[in-house]
């Protein structure tokens, strides 16, 4: 059998999706047994684990990660489900879904900054209520940001995970035959929301199970949201691992590896619990369906509208306040708006922002270009679909913080060092899955008869790809590029660990500055981060309209 270019791309894709995770986990296991590259002698494994378990606050870190992750995933899924149950199938929903992609694009860190300036004791919500309602003349002495229970962090996670799950559910609708099922159960006298939950949701959930697991794993191990909104004494386990991994004292790398294994175990336990929960809920749903009780589901519709509006307000409101802070001069506490305006921050950080922004976008573009070639090549190869589906979710479900420390060690060992190349490769591992996820459906939806006709016209497979499939898919490809760039721009941990501080991006800079607590600077960086991620989306919308302005079949097809 000859190896066509597309087969080569397919196996490269398999390698990129699977290789780093496996290499990283191997490195983590070695590290946890005390083998750290750069250290002369291995540390006895017992000492490593002893140090981990005696680390101050470690027990609370573990519990914190566990329960905030479960809570965030649970609320995200429940909210997404309620929104779909109460709202899908309506005209306003069809319009609103176009707003989901930008929601998804906003980096976690930027969204978290926005939430921080809203809910902090001196934040906008407190200002809006002060002093007329609350009586506060000074910011109240409340621990809202970084509350010990991690509720602020949970909120930050939900605002980002909710649109992701919604998008996944929408994508699953056609296969779940939602419209037909709905017509059927409505005819049986079920209200919209209840009918949707009983008849459509099971089919949807079956398809989005892996994305849900990814959300759960992510919520339990997120670093950026935790750094901005999470508790500090003690922080979630992911942050503890990060501190160990980034510490100049190499012996702490062994602790980072051991911690990564703890995190991995935590996620596995949570996944098992979640699976048990699935079974229980399914049982409950069946008995509810068999009971035959009808209900209007009005409550679900109201809840759906409230939830969608709340998360929208948190995201957009957050950005409005970030924008205000970035141009605020004097802005004392109870004042709702800045007393004076000043462009001092933009003037002093402008040049650095442009430079870092350009580097961030350039890196994202290079990574996405490579990922796009790999994704399209793999899809052309008509791959072993099961293998690809499983592998696509591997880097999304195995938490970054559990394999990146091991990978860091491995890349040091093979002399890859740190800098643009390892950072780009790391981004590729996380960008490629999203491109494959976004492109697979449009690619498979192309009428297969086009292929037959083109072959009949004598077009070689390569010409069919360049002249037909590529232009026919321009619109989804532009969208996929935007998603990919947003993913790359939002990466924090891989950039930090593989870059070794030598490749600052908007995200790493923003998080570094966050420690300083200057809201004006944070506002500017948060905005720049979001703008960098959203700009490709604007282009992705505009480009097909421009290119296909004389091709009706491409705009409405």
């Amino acid at each position, binding site marked *: 059998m000859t190896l066509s270019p597309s087969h080569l791309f397919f196996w490269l894709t398999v390698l990129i999706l699977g290789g780093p995770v496996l290499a990283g986990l191997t490195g983590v296991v070695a590290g946890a047994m005390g083998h750290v590259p750069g250290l002369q002698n291995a540390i006895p494994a017992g000492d490593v684990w002893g140090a981990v378990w005696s680390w101050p606050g470690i027990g609370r870190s573990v519990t914190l990660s566990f329960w905030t992750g479960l809570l965030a995933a649970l609320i995200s899924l429940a909210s997404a489900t309620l929104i779909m149950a109460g709202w899908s199938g309506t005209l306003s929903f069809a319009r609103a879904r176009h707003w989901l992609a930008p929601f998804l694009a906003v980096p976690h860190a930027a969204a978290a900054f926005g939430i921080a300036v809203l809910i902090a004791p001196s934040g906008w919500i407190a200002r809006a209520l002060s002093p007329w309602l609350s009586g506060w003349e000074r910011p109240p002495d409340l621990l809202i940001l970084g509350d010990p229970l991690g509720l602020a962090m949970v909120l930050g996670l939900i605002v980002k995970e909710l649109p992701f799950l919604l998008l996944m559910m929408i994508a699953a609708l056609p296969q779940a035959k939602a419209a037909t099922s709905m017509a059927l159960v409505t005819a049986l006298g079920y209200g919209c929301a209840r009918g949707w939950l009983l008849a459509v949701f099971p089919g949807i959930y079956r398809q989005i199970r892996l994305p849900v697991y990814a959300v759960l794993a992510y919520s339990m191990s997120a670093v950026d949201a935790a750094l901005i909104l999470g508790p500090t004494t003690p922080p979630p386990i992911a942050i503890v691992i990060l501190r160990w991994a980034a510490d100049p004292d190499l012996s702490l790398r062994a602790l980072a590896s051991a911690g990564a294994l703890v995190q991995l175990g935590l996620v596995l336990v949570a996944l098992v619990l979640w699976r048990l929960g699935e079974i229980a809920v399914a049982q409950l749903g069946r008995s509810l369906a068999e009971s035959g009780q009808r209900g209007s589901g009005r409550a679900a519709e109201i809840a759906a509208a409230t939830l969608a509006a709340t998360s929208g307000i948190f995201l957009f409101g957050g950005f409005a306040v970030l924008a205000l802070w970035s141009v605020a001069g004097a802005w004392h506490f109870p004042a709702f708006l800045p007393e004076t305006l000043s462009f001092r921050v933009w003037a002093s950080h402008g040049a650095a922002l442009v430079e870092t922004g350009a580097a961030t976008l350039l890196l994202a573009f290079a990574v996405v270009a490579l990922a796009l070639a790999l994704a399209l090549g793999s899809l052309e190869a008509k791959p072993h679909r099961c293998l690809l589906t499983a592998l696509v979710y591997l880097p999304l479900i195995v938490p970054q913080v559990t394999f990146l420390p091991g990978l860091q060690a491995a890349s040091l060992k093979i002399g890859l060092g740190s800098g643009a190349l390892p950072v780009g490769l790391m981004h590729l591992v996380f960008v490629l899955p999203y491109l494959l996820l976004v492109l697979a459906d449009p690619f498979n939806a192309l*009428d*297969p*008869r*086009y*292929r*037959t*006709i*083109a*072959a*009949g*016209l*004598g*077009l*070689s*497979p390569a010409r*069919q790809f360049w*002249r*037909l499939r590529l*232009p*026919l898919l*321009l619109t989804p490809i532009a969208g996929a590029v935007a998603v990919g760039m947003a993913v790359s721009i939002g990466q924090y941990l891989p950039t930090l660990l593989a870059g070794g501080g030598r490749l600052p991006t908007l995200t790493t800079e923003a998080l570094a500055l966050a420690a300083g607590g200057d809201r004006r600077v944070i506002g500017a960086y948060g905005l720049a981060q979001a703008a960098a991620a959203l700009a490709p989306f604007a282009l992705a919308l505009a480009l097909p309209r421009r290119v*296909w302005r*004389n*091709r*009706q*079949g*491409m705009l409405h*097809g």
Partner: protein
Amino acid sequence: MAESLILKTLTISAGATPIVSVSLTAAAGEITTLMGPSGSGKSSILAAITGTVPDGLFATGEILLGGQNIATLPGWKRHIGILYQDDLLFPHLSVGGNLALGLAPGGRRTERQGRVKRALSEVGLEGLAARDPATLSGGQKARVALMRVLLSEPRALLLDEPFGTLDSELRSQIRSLVFNHAKARGLPTLLVTHDPQDAEAAGGPVIRLR
């Protein structure tokens, strides 16, 4: 080029179960009709000839074109033109772009444009080369689709219920246009249909699948 398209016990199977088996000779310049109820394997036979048998099925037997067994060639080297019920013009290309796509590569630009222009005027569509295919009427699209496949100089023509979506007046008009062009070029043509009127109009041998 007076080549016949000959199917020698062309058999499509799913695993070990044969679905359909057929032997026939479609003579050059003649319209051979393949009739049968849906599910009788008509589409699978066409897919075997174009080299696009779907996953899970496989074809055995010989497909001879001018004495050469093309069954072993990849689809794009077989030069089998096909017309479907839908026009399936490529929506991203202009009318002229659709036609030029089928032209063999090479030749001067003006020469290629000239051939596209002549093909359009042959079917009464002068001056439409720059148009967006989405703006054409159903009859116009069908004619563009016909000229696209003919310009690619196929060695045989397959018609997969190509007149199904046209209303009755247009139907007979397009039908005779397609048949006349196929006969005039001496193409062996295989028509798959379940409409007896199509078979009658084709005027060639009729093979019934069960």
